[in-house]
């Protein structure tokens, strides 16, 4: 039995009934009177100088209300990290990828807006373009941005310990090069937004985003209006997974067009435009060398990585740091060296996607560890266990594992998958593989340098005392944060979950950095807990006074007042409550209720408002870039995957997956499982199917969900989910992340299982039938 009343349960999600009935509103489900429709003109060329933009014909088309280009929008630079603001809303001198934005139109309907786009005449002078890391870094290659020589948008060089010495002490040194492919997050809801200025010049933007807070700041900066006059409201969002973590040209265009026309403006990306906007997973090319002792002890690791990043930096600086820093664990590794280069190419910009920066690195290394295990004649599980970190360990790059059930996870999947009976013992074409991984529970620092709180939360009690209204800027994007916050608040306050009402995703309510880096449960959770405790304290104070007992004697549980020192005569309170509520339907009986106490508090003090806030303390080392990878806590995960490979066609079928994840305390068990299953499904797609493909001119060949293949219900097997609960000292009620750590082991576990099935190592994704077939044929030669 759980010691808790609300959390650590399988409470149904608060938003599920609305979503299951179609009542939940997403942004395209909204409309406003007099609303115009906007559309964006995008470049058909990958790299070209803009000679002239003629909008006159578009402007004179009946029904067109505004046409805006860089001339109207200005040239304010923006981006994700202030260190690399390298985008303007519309291109002015040149375009840098097929899809780069040139202009936007607002018209009475979408048809007119689209017609207007086709009437805008742009003259280009085509420039030579670069599409790969190799082309981009070549001597004399054309530059995308003049101030970034060799097209390097960011580079990182770090060494921890003494790598050379580590290799000298090693008995076996292994080097491999591993390549993944560009991803798309393929959330089901394309981006959309609806912008409106009121008559006082205040802007409200409804948008499908993960980060209302950052969108508010970027929109304010680019449009030149004070942050306080921008309100960003997030309705329900149909998935994000990373790419909805930054302000888009769509959002800024809608705001600008709304400003120019004085009318509400709605805009949507088509599915193709979602691919063009991208901001999803980079392509990573990792060359990794590991040195080990005969007994498997890890001695040193060097990791060189090139990231194909597209035309702008987006999250790239963070990404290139993450693809180094996230190899610091979960194994004890004394020496590590990292050289990372993120490179501009004439393709859509890459950004953050589930498992930000770490997924390919993890796949490369976990595969190499298996190769080492084979060379040393060790069971892959054994190799991992010999090096495993545990609670209290600090990585060589100063990531503090304040709780880490990694060993428990490995043992759980070993036993849960029947590993010992299967590994190396199945018939040809069948195999099992294991891998591990970990991830942050919220980035240790905001994206812009600031002492800001990462989250503030307000909880207000309704005047009748019956409902706690939780107000937060956090972003419910499908992961379940609204329900999690409600559960935390109910637990901390001692009331029922059904007595909490959550309003979220609105920058007017409170400050919250949003749904990225798996931060909501820990960070917003802390602020929620603090706000709830603040409310509780206030109510208890009033009640204690009324009853003339010390406040410490009072507690709340399940909506009832608990007197710790035995019975207290509360008849006076009850009587006055009943007198206050003549005619109300709920004359209380039995134990004194929270509601009665809260009503008393209201009568004594007015509306009871509690606030909470959170920011992590100082984290990490002192070296350059030490901030990236820091977190108050780390979740970790181990997986065993079982596959069948058709040895003749190369087709891989995933038969079974076993996943153990340490999420600290599971606030909502069903949601934790849901995150695990969803992560594995996304990892499986990336391992087997997913790749954004381009033609020779930088145009995407498969910008649709038919040819960009995410797993269907017939591809994804059932996952055996095992929740390992450590107690995270830095988490609210001991909770930490689950949304991204669980994707880390999936790809390498599949790679390692395919090796077990076929005897072939494959170092390139995705494992399409053709790639696997070729590898098998190659090995036969």
């Amino acid at each position, binding site marked *: 039995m759980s010691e808790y009343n609300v959390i650590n349960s399988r409470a149904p999600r608060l938003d599920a009934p609305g979503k299951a009935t179609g009542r939940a509103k997403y942004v395209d489900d909204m409309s406003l009177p007099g609303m115009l429709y906007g559309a964006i003109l995008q470049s058909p060329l990958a790299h070209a100088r803009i000679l002239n933009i003629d909008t006159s014909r578009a402007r004179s088309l009946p029904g067109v209300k505004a046409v805006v280009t860089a001339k109207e929008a200005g040239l304010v630079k923006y981006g994700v990290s202030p260190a690399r603001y390298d985008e303007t809303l519309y291109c002015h001198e040149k375009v840098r990828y097929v899809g780069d934005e040139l202009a936007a139109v607002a018209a009475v309907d*979408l*048809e007119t807006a*689209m017609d207007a786009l086709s009437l805008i005449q742009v003259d280009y002078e085509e420039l030579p373009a670069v599409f790969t890391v190799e082309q981009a870094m070549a001597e004399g290659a054309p530059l995308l941005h003049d101030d970034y020589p060799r097209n390097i948008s960011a580079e990182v060089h770090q060494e921890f310990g003494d790598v050379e010495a580590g290799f000298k002490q090693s008995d076996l040194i292994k080097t491999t090069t591993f390549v993944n492919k560009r991803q798309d997050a393929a959330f089901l809801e394309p981006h959309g937004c609806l912008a409106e200025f009121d008559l006082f010049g205040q802007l409200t933007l409804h948008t499908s985003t993960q980060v209302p807070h950052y969108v508010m700041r970027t929109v304010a900066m680019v449009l030149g209006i004070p942050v306080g006059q921008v309100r960003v409201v997030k309705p329900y969002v149909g998935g994000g997974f990373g790419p909805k973590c930054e302000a888009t040209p769509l959002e800024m265009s809608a705001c600008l067009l709304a400003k120019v026309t004085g009318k509400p403006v709605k805009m949507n990306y*088509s599915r193709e435009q979602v691919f063009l906007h991208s901001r999803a997973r980079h392509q990573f090319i990792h060359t990794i060398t590991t040195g080990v002792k005969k007994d498997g002890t890890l001695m040193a690791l060097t990791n060189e990585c090139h990231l194909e990043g597209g035309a702008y930096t987006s999250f790239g600086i963070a990404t290139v740091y993450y693809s180094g820093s996230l190899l610091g664990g979960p194994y004890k590794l004394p020496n590590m060296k990292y050289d990372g280069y993120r490179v501009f190419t004439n393709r859509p910009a890459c950004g953050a996607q589930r498992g930000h920066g770490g997924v390919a690195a993890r796949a490369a290394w976990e595969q190499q560890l298996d190769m080492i295990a084979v060379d040393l004649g060790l069971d892959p599980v054994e190799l991992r266990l010999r090096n495993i970190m545990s609670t209290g360990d600090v990585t060589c790059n100063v990531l503090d594992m304040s709780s880490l059930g990694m060993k428990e996870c490995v043992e759980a999947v070993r036993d849960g998958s029947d590993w010992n009976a299967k590994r190396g013992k199945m018939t040809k074409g069948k195999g099992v593989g294991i891998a591990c991984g970990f991830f942050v529970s919220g980035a240790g620092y905001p994206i812009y340098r600031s002492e800001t709180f990462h989250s503030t939360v307000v909880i207000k009690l309704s005047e009748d005392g019956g409902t706690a209204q939780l107000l937060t800027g956090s972003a419910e994007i499908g992961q379940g944060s609204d329900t999690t916050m409600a559960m935390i608040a109910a637990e901390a306050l001692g009331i029922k979950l059904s007595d909490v009402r959550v309003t979220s995703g609105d920058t007017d309510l409170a400050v919250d950095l949003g749904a990225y880096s798996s931060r909501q449960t820990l960070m917003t959770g802390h602020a929620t807990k603090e706000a709830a405790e603040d409310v509780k304290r206030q109510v208890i104070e009033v009640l204690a006074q009324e009853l003339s007992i010390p406040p410490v004697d009072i507690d709340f549980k399940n909506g009832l007042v608990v007197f710790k020192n035995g019975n207290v005569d509360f008849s006076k309170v009850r009587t006055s409550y009943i007198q206050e509520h003549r005619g109300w339907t709920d004359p209380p009986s039995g134990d004194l209720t929270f509601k009665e106490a809260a009503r008393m508090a209201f009568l004594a003090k007015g509306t009871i408002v509690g606030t909470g806030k959170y920011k992590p303390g100082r984290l990490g080392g002192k070296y350059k870039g030490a901030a990236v990878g820091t977190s108050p806590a780390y979740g970790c995960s181990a997986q065993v995957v079982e596959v069948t490979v058709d040895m*003749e*066609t190369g*087709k891989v079928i995933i038969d079974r997956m076993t996943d153990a994840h340490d999420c600290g305390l599971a606030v909502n068990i069903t949601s934790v499982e849901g995150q695990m299953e969803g992560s594995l499904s996304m990892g499986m797609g990336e391992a*087997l*199917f997913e790749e954004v*493909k381009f033609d020779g001119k930088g145009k995407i*060949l*498969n910008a649709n969900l*038919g*040819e960009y*293949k995410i*797993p*269907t219900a*017939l*591809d994804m097997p059932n996952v055996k989910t095992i929740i390992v609960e450590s107690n995270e000292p830095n988490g609210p009620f001991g909770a930490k992340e689950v949304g991204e750590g669980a994707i880390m082991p999936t790809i390498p576990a599949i790679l390692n299982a395919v090796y077990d099935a076929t005897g072939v190592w494959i170092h390139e994704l995705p494992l*399409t*039938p*053709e790639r696997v*077939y*070729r590898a098998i044929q190659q090995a036969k030669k």
Partner: protein
Amino acid sequence: MLLPKFDYHEPATLGEACQVMGDLGQKTKALAGGTDLIVNMKKKILSPACLVYLGRIKEMKKIDSSNGLFKIGAGLTAAEVAEMEEIKNNYSALSRGASCLGSPLIRNLATIAGNLVSARPAADFPPPLMAYGARVVLKSSSGERVVSLDDFFKGPGQTLIAPEEILTEIVLDKLRPFSGAGYIKLGTRQTLEISLVNVAAFVSLDGPDGVIKTARIVLGAVGPVPLRAPSGEKALIGEKPSEALLAKAGEAAAFDSKPIDDYRGSAEYRRAMVDVLTRRALNEAINAARSNLN
């Protein structure tokens, strides 16, 4: 995503449909399930001035088995074909092909006519139908003609149907005892797939343990149109089925294929898969033939 503007007609009978198609001519497209046409129109690949919707024509949804023939209305959807008992029992490879097409939702819209006329090289209906020796009936106001499906396809998206013609019906011979077919599709995912390669094979035996009398092998996605594999077929005639024989036929079929490299797969891989899939399809066909005692 908006559709371009067009005129719309909705004939209730075949006669009316032929009339409208004849009157409107070149710029008209027949709209059946719409799963290809509407997509191509949204993507602005096609913008016909006029659509003639055939979905209300009852005559195109009939099946008829008389006179030693089995006639399938071309307006039937993939789902209807896949679930029809008569087809499941007698033309299992066709049923299989129908159930591999797109997704359950798509199968409730897409029709045989549409799948054939849009003439995608990787389509799921042509290989099994050609393996069963299907003919198609093309109707216009000036009459009708019956064309072997072998001759129907001219290139990707191109067939010999004239602008005023409507594909109304598929004609199959009743299967003789000891004949049967198989269909195998290889895609990256398990569903919602455009085939990397698909192969259908048909054989008739001169008895349960007899030699192969006739054979047809049809290869999809390895040429501009679904291809027969003549040397693969030839290798089988007069021979008793065996693993070695199927291997030989597979190799020969691979030789007959004309795949190209595209972003979905290389020619080399596709050729190798023709070999594998031909063997498997033949195996299915032989098993089907042996159990077909009719």
